[in-house]
Every structure is written in C-alpha cells, then in structure tokens.
C-alpha cells in the first residue's frame, strides 16, 4: 500500500504539488492521470523518496519514506521516467546489480533473473549486452530491475512511453498479473485510454492538485458523461476554471 498524505512541493515560484493525498491499495492498479506538467512525476518522486516534500508524508507499507527510507524502499520497486540501462552490461548483469544493491544473495539473484526472464520473455537477450536493445527490450529489463527484489509495491512513471502497440499490450498483461498476485501498482500516464483500460482506480491530477480520486465508473457517473473520455475532459476542464 502506498499512501500520499497532503504532499506539497514548490520549485521556486512553481507550486508543483498542492496537498496531494491519495491511497494506492494492494491488489489494485492505481493510475495517476494528468497532462504533461500536471505534477505526476513530482508526486511519484516524492513517493519513492528522491524528492523531499516541503510538507506532508509518503508512506509505503506503513513505513515513512523520509524516516525509514531503506525499509520503505525495500518494499518498493521503481521504474522512473528515465530508465536507462548500463550499455556495457548484459541484461542479466543489469538486473543482478540492482538485486545486489537491494541486498539479495547470489543464488536468490540468479533465481529471480530466471523467474523474471520467464515472466517478461527475456530469454533471447538476457545475456546480451544492453547496447543496441530496442525500446521494448530496455523497458523489460528496467522493469525486471525494479522487480528483482519482488517488492509488494511498484511505482512506474509513464512506463508506456516509446513502446509499440505490442509491447504496451504485454506490459498491461504483466501489470494485471502482478495485481492479481496481490501487488500494489501505481503508475502515471497522460494517455486516457491506457488508464481506462488498466486501472481499478484513477487519480486525476491537474496543476499540482488531485482533481478526482475514484474508479473509472464512478467518475463517469459523477460527471454524467457518456464516455470516460468526456468525463475526464470535464474533470480537467473544471480544474482549469479553478486554477
């Protein structure tokens, strides 16, 4: 479970996050939806602790990311917006490096590499150097890297960026599988269809605020819109009026 409690963050004059609060539950996929620059990455970065909020708390499985950073992070897998690999290492070595830094033993790392390779279909390139990997292959390795310690919570910042249709579909199936295994998944996107297709819960962010926090169905009901798309547009539109 990932909890955001009244997170605030300013970068100079820009108020990038204002009182952001929401909860991402276990066994659910929570989508953070918003236009580019709405504050999605800022919110996520505070949740995985590379940005310190001016006020508010980020909590992972009951551990405050500021106070118990290592403990919270041990329960957290992160796929940041920029997820480059080490080009001179093989896919397996890339994954193993993060496994070792998560404190896993050699045998455990080996076992996880095999499991993840099966899960993400990486056999073909597991022992090839990452130089020259396709975007799809890179995302798979980066995801495996984030999952190496088998975390109960997973944060992904715009994971589908640059992926082709096939790869996006694979990713969706993968995330659905993890959800069904009881994991808590939080991901951001600016693509509505993606969120609609995948999420159990949607948190809409605009100008650094939470504009809506509900299931896709609830949002549709509340706005009285026929399609989810027009419902989102209504939510975002009212936010622009506010803000």
């Amino acid at each position, binding site marked *: 479970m990932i909890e955001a409690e009244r997170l605030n963050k300013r970068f100079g004059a820009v108020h990038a996050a204002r009182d952001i609060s929401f909860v991402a539950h276990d066994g659910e996929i929570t989508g953070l939806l918003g236009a580019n620059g709405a504050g999605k990455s800022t919110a996520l970065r505070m949740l995985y*602790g*590379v940005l310190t909020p001016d006020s508010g708390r980020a909590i992972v499985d009951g551990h405050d990311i500021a106070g118990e950073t290592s403990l919270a992070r041990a329960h957290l897998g992160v796929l*940041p917006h920029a997820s480059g690999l080490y*080009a001179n290492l093989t896919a397996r*070595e890339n994954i193993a490096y993060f496994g*070792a830094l998560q404190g896993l033993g050699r045998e455990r790392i080996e076992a996880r590499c095999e499991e993840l390779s099966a899960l993400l279909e990486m056999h073909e390139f597991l022992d090839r150097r990452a130089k020259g990997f396709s975007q799809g292959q890179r995302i798979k390795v980066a995801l495996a*890297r984030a999952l190496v310690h088998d975390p109960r919570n997973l944060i992904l910042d715009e994971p589908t960026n640059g992926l082709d249709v096939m790869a996006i579909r694979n990713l969706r199936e993968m995330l659905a599988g993890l959800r069904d295994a009881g994991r808590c998944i939080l991901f951001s996107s600016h693509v509505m269809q993606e969120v609609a297709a995948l999420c159990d819960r949607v948190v809409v962010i605009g100008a650094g605020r939470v504009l809506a926090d509900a299931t896709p169905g609830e949002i549709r009901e509340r706005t009285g819109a026929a399609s989810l798309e027009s419902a989102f547009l209504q939510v975002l539109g009212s936010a622009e009026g506010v803000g």
Partner: protein
Amino acid sequence: MGALLTVFRKEFLENLRDRRTLFSALLFGPLFGPLLFGAMVTRMLDQNSFAADQSLQLTVSGGERAPGLAQFLRSHGVKLRLTNLSEEAARAAVTQGREDVVLIVPAEYPERFAAGRPAPVLLVADSSDTQNRKSAERARAILASYGGGIAQQRLQLRGLDPLLTVPVAVNDVDVATPTGRAVAILGFMTYFVLFALLMGGLYLAIDSTAGERERGSLEALLSLPVPRTTLVGGKILATCAYMGLSLGVTLAAFVVVFHFVPLERLGMSANLGVGTALSLFAICLPFVPLGAALMTFVASFTRSYREAQTYLTIVLLVPTLPIAFASIYSLKTRSSLMLVPSLSQHLLMTSVLRAEPIGALDLGVATFSCLVLAALLIALTARHWRRETMLG
C-alpha cells in the same frame, strides 16, 4: 560494505568493457608520457654529444692564399673542404643550407698578413640555426687561437714579452651541476606521472556521474535502499583502482624507457630501477584518492558527458600549476610545501630520482594532506549527491 563493493565491482567491470576508457586509462595516458619523455631526453643528449664528438667541417674558399692557417686548422682536427666561392655565393649556400659554415680568405689576405697588418677573413654562418651557430663558434675559437699564436710569434721576433698583451687573466668557474640542469626535465617527468594517474580515472569519473545521469540510470539507482555516500564511495573507489593501474603502467613504462636513456648524464640516479619505481608508486599513491575525489566531485555538477569532459580537462591541468611554480621559483623541499598536493609529489619524486634521501616527516605530511583533502572532497561529493538537484 557489501553495497560499496557491489558498486565498485560493477563500475570496474563496466569500464573494463569500454574501449575508450581502457585506451585512455591504460594505454594513451600511461605510455604517452614515457615515450615522449624518452624521445625528448635522447634527442637532447644526442645534440650535445654530437657537437662535441664530431670533428668540425669547414668549407674554405681561397685556402691556397693562407697555407699557414689551413695547416693550423687541419692540425686542430678541422676537416677542410677547399672550394672557390664568391662572398655572395657563400651567403646563398649557407642560407639555403647547402653549406654549413664557410670561411673565405680574400685576395688581399697574403699581402696584409705579410705586412703585419690585420688580415681579413670572412666567416659565413647562420646564427639562427643552433647547430650552425655551434660550428661557427668552434671555428671562431680555432681562428682566434691561430691569431693569438701568430701575435705571440711576432712579439717574440721583436723582442717583446708576449705576456704584455695579457693584462688580465680570466678564469671561468662554472658551478652549474648536471643536477641543476635536470630540474626542468624532472618537472616534465613528474607531471607526466601525475597526468597519467589522472587520465586513468578520467573517463570512469565522468561515466559514473554525468554518464549515469545522461543514460537515465541515475534516478533508478538513487531510488534504491543504499545510502548515497556508499554509492559515491564505490564509484570513487573504482576510479581509484583505474588510476592505480594507470600509475603502475606509467612507472613500468618509465622503467623500460629509462633503461635505454643514459640518465646519469642528466644527473639523475643512473637507473630508474624497479626499486625506484616502487618508491615513486608509494609517493603518488595518496594522490590517487584525491584525484579521484576531485574528478568525481567536479563531474557530479555537470549536466552531460560533454560538459564533464570540458571541465575535467581543466582539472587535468591543475597539478601543473604547483610544478610550474616550483620551477619558476626553484623551490626546494621544505615541510611546509609538503602540504600542497602535486607539488609535494613532484618534490618527493624529484628527490627519489636524484637518489637523495627523503624525510619521513615530509612523506608523512604529503600523504596526510592528500588524504585529508580527499576525505573532504568525498564528503562534499556525497553531500551533493544527497541533494535533489542531483536528479537533473
């Protein structure tokens, strides 16, 4: 500790697979200095000994007019080549390098010589050419000694004491030692050693900081449950390892090169043997963590690989400054100077190369100041890594 070694191993391995890193760390950096140095020293020695050992070649025009002079020159080991050139032809020949130095005996020479009047000879040379100037100087000295001999004979024939013409006897006492002359050369050599040492870690320092950010792997790394100090420590440690390797290769290359260079003529200990090389290694070792920390620190502030390269190229020049000061002001080893890194290494290495003893205190102070500065820079780097701006 486990995470520190993990970071170290990964950085070491990754860069071992990078051709550019390997080339600069273990080939270009370490071998460039010794080879250039060997070539330079050999050439310098060659030029000096060449001039002294070889007999002077002199082209003489109108030599038949001065048989006494020609005889004197031959008896002083000058090889004469008799020709017949006008002054213009001789000038042109020397200018164009067809002739080295030309001595012209004009038509009026025999008559004036017989009459006891100053008999002119023309020495055509090119003073802008070092080699040519040396030949001309030697020719002039021999001609002067011929003139002096003739003058003495003439005075004796007239019953006068030749010593009357020598009212003052000047004796040169030259205190320049070969060691003194070697200082500039040693400055070169010690700088090459420090340069190679820094080159060894240059790319790793960039790759593990600005490179990490540019590749987009930094944020994932920073979101791991590993203290930033540990990450920085592992990276600096890997940089140190490459610098140590580079230092070793450099010194080994110097040992090989010096085997073929007659160093004792520059006043250095005759051989840069394995023992000396080990001493030099020990002297430079404390500079390794300092250089690694400095380069990692600087590279951490840059936004891109390219920017890091620009700034670190400047860092490569930093150790030259104290060495340049040392040669301008001819600084001698003093304990207070041992506080200045790179200068202390330079002075200590110079002492070892001259086979002078070095003080334990000096070595201690030099090592200590390097390590303290390194620790300070590592702490500053780690502090920067804990900042949010590190994400870029």
